[in-house]
Every structure is written in C-alpha cells, then in structure tokens.
C-alpha cells in the first residue's frame, strides 16, 4: 500500500477533498450551519415583529404571539428541547424524566435569588451547576441500563423528585404552593428590600419585566428585556449545540445510537460518552429552569411532573429529533398551540364561519370546535401520532420533503433535511 492518497481510479486526491469546507468556516461553523444560525438569530431578534403580524383589535389579533410572556416561553422551552435533543437525538436514549432537571434548576435558581442577589446571572449559573450535578447522579445510575429500562429509571427518578418536592421537601420547595421571592429574603449581595416591595429579577439593574412598546399604525410591538436576554442565552445554547453536533464527541454519540457493539470493539467506552451527553442535556434543562425563574420569579413542583417530561419529548419528536432546528421549532409549535389555539372559543369560530349559510356554519363550528380551545391537546395528540407514523424526521423532514418537491433540480437537500432523511433511511 502506498502513502500516496489516491481515489478509486488511482488519481491522487487534491489535498484531501473533505478538508475543503474547513477553509470557509465562520465562527467555527460550516457554511450551511452558519446560514442556519444566522436565520435563527434573525428570527429570534425580530420575533416581536414576526409574531405580531395582525393589527391590534382586528379579528385575527388573537393569533398574535408577540407578547413577552409567550415569547419568553418559546425561547426557554427551545433551550430545554435543544438540550433534550443532545441526549435523545444523538444517542437515542429516551429519557422520560427530563423535567426533573428543569425543576431542580428552577429551585436552585430561586434560592440563589433569595440568598445571593436578584441579578439573574448568579441565579442562572447556579441553576446550571445544580441541575448538572443532579443529572450526573441520575445519569450515573440510570445509564447502567438501556432501552425501556433506562426510560423507566429516569421516569422513576423524576416522579420521586416531584413527590419529594411536593411533600417532604416543602421547607425548600414550598410544597403545593411553590416558591416565591419575598422582600425579607436575606439577599447577602443586594442587602434587604424595603418592607412591602415586590422583589424583581434584574440584570445589573435592568428589570426582566421592562418593556418598550412601539406603535406603528394599528400595530403594537413589544420589546421586552427578559425576552431578549433569554433569546441571547438561547442563541448561545443553540450555537453550542451546533458545535456539539459537528464535534468528534457528537459523532461518537451518533455512533452509540447506531451500533454500540462496534463502538466498544473500536476501543471506545460508551458509558462516559452517554453520561456526558446526559449531563450536558441536564444542564440545558437546568438553564431553561433558571431562565423560567428569572422571568416569573416563582417555582411550583408541577414543573417536574411526568407530563412536563412528556412535553419535551413531544417537542423534540414533533420538530425532528436529531436535527438542529427541529427541537426549537417543536417547542415553538407546542407553546403556540398551548397559548393561542387553546384560546379559540365557540364565538370566535362562529365569527370565522359566519360567511357560510346558517346550517353549514353551525356544522363547521361543530366539526372544528373539538379540536381547538380546550381541545387543543387532542389536535396535538393527533398531530404527534401523524408525525411518528408518517414523518419520523418530524416537521423538519416534512419541510425538506416539500422543499425537494419544489426544487427537483438541486440534488442535495438542505442540511437539516439530510439529518431527518437519515433517520428515515435508517428506519426503512
């Protein structure tokens, strides 16, 4: 065998073809990844405009999602899902207890605000560290098993955390009522507050609740400090996730999902890899929990209930497990449903179908009504089933399929689509 690099036909490969894309990297990202990152930056920064497309007071204004509370939730649950995807999307280990880390992160965050300062940075750092430590313990034990046993172990840990937070640990969790900030909390860095004042989280004096409202004609756009801080944190988290996906470490995680036997017989110890992935994804959950506390300065144990763990599974699968952008889309989708579609009531529907003749309009309302408003869970469940059955790559795969229909001339699908198609191909 020669040292000369040759391809199949025997001709030398010009300086290793695959290294070519190493040259045009921006921020350490490949061209397509960087494009995707720019797109996400643009979407999050312009979200107050994008999410408020309808003028105030118009019939459609209830579809506006550009209010601070919901926008914060979009990005925070986006972080949660990005982190979950690092574990599930890459290694294939399905954790059914990830909400525990979110909850633990929240409790840690609120205690940092009670004991240290109302500044959100120490609080968020505490959330990440404590959730990471907790994930290390749970992961160390749960990862001794795989498959459904792993899922049940994580579920058991999360339910235990929930039950303890709800009962015995009441002194530090607030039990059923949850934890709130009080003016008399001993904040050793800030000093005490005036009696009767409401403690508000801030970033070096900038309050999370601070907002600037911009009126353009009939449109009203709200720019909220808390949202932008959470959005910047999400962008950092997203950037780090891209780096992890494209790193040797990320490739090893995919290798674990693909063939653990070969992994071990290639001299690699899969246990520390899965544990590291578990801890990283636990830290992401803790970060999300810390941000939730930073935004609304309260925690309740229901944040750790298994349905909350199920929700992040739904988000990740719906958007596209194993893809970069999928979990963010899934989180946005579900939070939009939860907050907007759930508000559609019978009279709204009647207004929509008013253009139809009497009987038909009633029929249309009757047909649509079970799926909106309080029935939004039904739509979500059906949608989720449809995705699992027909689109194992999630919405991202659906999008890339549509894209290939429209652009037959291009051979290569978009970056994201490729990952989704991969998953599909692996299952075929």
């Amino acid at each position, binding site marked *: 065998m020669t040292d000369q690099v040759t391809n199949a036909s025997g001709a030398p490969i010009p300086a290793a073809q695959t290294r070519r894309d*190493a040259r045009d990297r921006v921020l350490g990202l490949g061209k397509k990844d960087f494009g995707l990152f720019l797109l996400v930056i643009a979407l999050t920064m312009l979200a107050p405009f994008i999410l408020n497309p309808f003028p105030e007071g118009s019939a459609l204004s209830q579809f506006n999602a550009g209010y601070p509370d919901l926008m914060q939730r979009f990005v925070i649950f986006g972080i949660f899902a990005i982190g979950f995807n690092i574990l599930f999307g890459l290694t294939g280990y399905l954790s059914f207890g990830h909400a525990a880390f979110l909850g633990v992160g929240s409790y840690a965050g609120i205690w940092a605000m009670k004991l240290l300062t109302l500044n959100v940075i120490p609080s968020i750092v505490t959330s990440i560290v404590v959730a990471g430590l907790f994930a290390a313990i749970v992961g160390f034990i749960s990862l001794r098993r795989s498959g459904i046993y792993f899922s049940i172990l994580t579920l058991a840990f999360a339910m235990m955390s929930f039950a303890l937070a709800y009962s015995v640990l009441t002194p530090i969790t607030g039990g059923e009522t949850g934890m709130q900030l009080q003016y008399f909390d001993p904040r050793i860095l800030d000093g005490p507050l005036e009696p009767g004042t409401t403690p508000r989280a801030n970033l070096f004096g900038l309050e999370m609740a601070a907002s600037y409202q911009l009126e353009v004609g009939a449109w009203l756009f709200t720019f909220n400090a808390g949202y932008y801080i959470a959005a910047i944190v999400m962008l950092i988290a997203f950037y780090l996730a891209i780096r992890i996906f494209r790193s040797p470490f990320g490739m090893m995680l995919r*290798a674990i999902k693909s063939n653990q036997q070969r992994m071990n017989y290639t001299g690699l110890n899969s246990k520390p890899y899965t544990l590291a992935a578990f801890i990283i994804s636990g830290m992401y959950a803790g970060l999300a929990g810390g941000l939730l506390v930073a935004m609304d300065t309260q925690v309740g144990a229901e944040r750790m209930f298994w349905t909350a763990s199920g929700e992040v599974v739904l988000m990740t699968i719906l958007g596209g497990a194993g893809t970069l952008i999928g979990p963010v889309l899934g989180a946005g989708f579900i939070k939009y449903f939860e907050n907007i579609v759930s508000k559609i009531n019978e009279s709204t529907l009647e207004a929509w179908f008013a253009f139809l003749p009497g009987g038909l309009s009633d029929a249309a309302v009757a047909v649509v009504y079970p799926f909106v408003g309080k029935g939004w869970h039904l739509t979500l469940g059906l949608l989720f089933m449809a995705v699992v059955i027909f689109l194992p790559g999630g919405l991202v795969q659906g999008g890339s399929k549509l894209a290939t229909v429209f652009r037959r001339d291009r051979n290569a699908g978009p970056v994201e689509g490729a990952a989704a198609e991969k998953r599909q191909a692996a299952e075929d």
Partner: protein
Amino acid sequence: MGILEVRDVSKRFGGLQALGDVNLSVAERSVHAIIGPNGAGKSTLLNCLVGKLIPDTGSVSFEGQSVLGRKPHEINQMGISRVFQTPEIFGDLTVLENMLIPCFAHRDGAFDLSAYANMMSDTEIVDRAEHALSDMRMADKRHMHAASLSRGDKRRLEIGMCLAQEPRLLLLDEPTAGMARADTNNTIDLLREIKETRPITICIIEHDMHVVFSLAERITVLAQGTPLVEDTPDRIKGHPKVREAYLGESSGH
C-alpha cells in the same frame, strides 16, 4: 512466546462444556486459523479473547499482559481488533465518519470530551481516515451511508476500520460467511495484502476451507471444545484425526 497465549482455558455453559483446557499460541506476524465443526467452541474461544466472555479457568495474555477481566474496549486499546461474522459498522453514519471513529479512538483513547472542536478541521485525523479509505479503495464512497453499502463493501469497511487503529492482532470471525464466491475471493486478496504490507498478526476463525488454506500459515483444529491438532496447512489437510472430526462416522466408508 507468541503474541497471544491461551493457557488451559475452559468455559462451561450450564451442563455444556464449551471449552476444555484450550492451549493456543499465536506467533507474532503469522496468520493463524482456528477451524472446527459446528459447536466446536470456536466462537466461545473468540469471545473469551475479546472480553465478551470470561473463561472459568485458565489465562489469556496478549503481548505478555493478561486480558482477562478487561472490558472489550480496554482489550481493543491493547491492540486487538475484531471483525464480526456479520459486518458491524455504524449504519447511520457516512463511510467517512465510520472511518473517522477508529482514527479518533486510536489517537485519543477510550473517551475524549472534545465537544467544541469541529471533527472535520482535525486535519491529522481526516487525512488518516482518507488514507485508510483509499487503502480499502473506498474513497469514492466516502459520503455514502454505511447502511447502503453492499455486503462486500461493508466487510471491507469493517476491516478498514479495524486496521485504522493499527492493531497488532486482528481477529476475524468467519469473515466470508454468507458471501458470494467473488466477494470471498476479494476478501482473501484483501487479507493477503494486509498480511504482506502490515506488521500485523491475524487470527481467523473460519468454516470455509478454501479461505483457510489460501491464507493460514498455521491451523488449530478445535473439536468439542479442545484443540485436536495444530500444524501447518499441508499437514492438516491429510491428518486422519481432522478427517475424523469433520467427517464423523462417515470416515469409516
């Protein structure tokens, strides 16, 4: 003293004596074949060598160090690579990524938390993987999904991945099982090339006598969990005990 020394290894599964006092010495840089009829204990022996099974008694040492009680990845890091009966590759990954993994494992060890670096900017590793691919004549398939390769290509890739770790001992478990004649011959040629160009010891478990006699320098015949004879291929061919073990009662005809 051979590179691989198996001393008095035995293994029972319940009432079945799968291996009984197996002694085996594989000389460095040789091609050693282990043959035997079905149920002779070939696979059990192999699993004892790579840490998948722990023998009840005896010792297994590689380059003077015991392998017993070590996990498969530790044994691999000692310099033993294993090729499976059905190719075990990373089906969801591309061919190039399949090749990158052993290159990383060889350089960085059993665990490396480089979660921030880009794997494709590691020119040392990428070059090595590209080399390994061209050695296997698979460079043009680098972006294909490993799962979509033909059976013969999967086998080549798996062998290439093992070689990329520069092992000193390569264990092959029936590498041509279920292959068409052409693929079998390609595999024989590939293994022969490996033997001639690399400082490597090859230990092969095989059913197909064509493969064994084309490659092996020494052959151990295993029957009912114990080595029957060990000798050169020429002598094994005519050995009465071997005929008896393989042909069983039909030897009387």
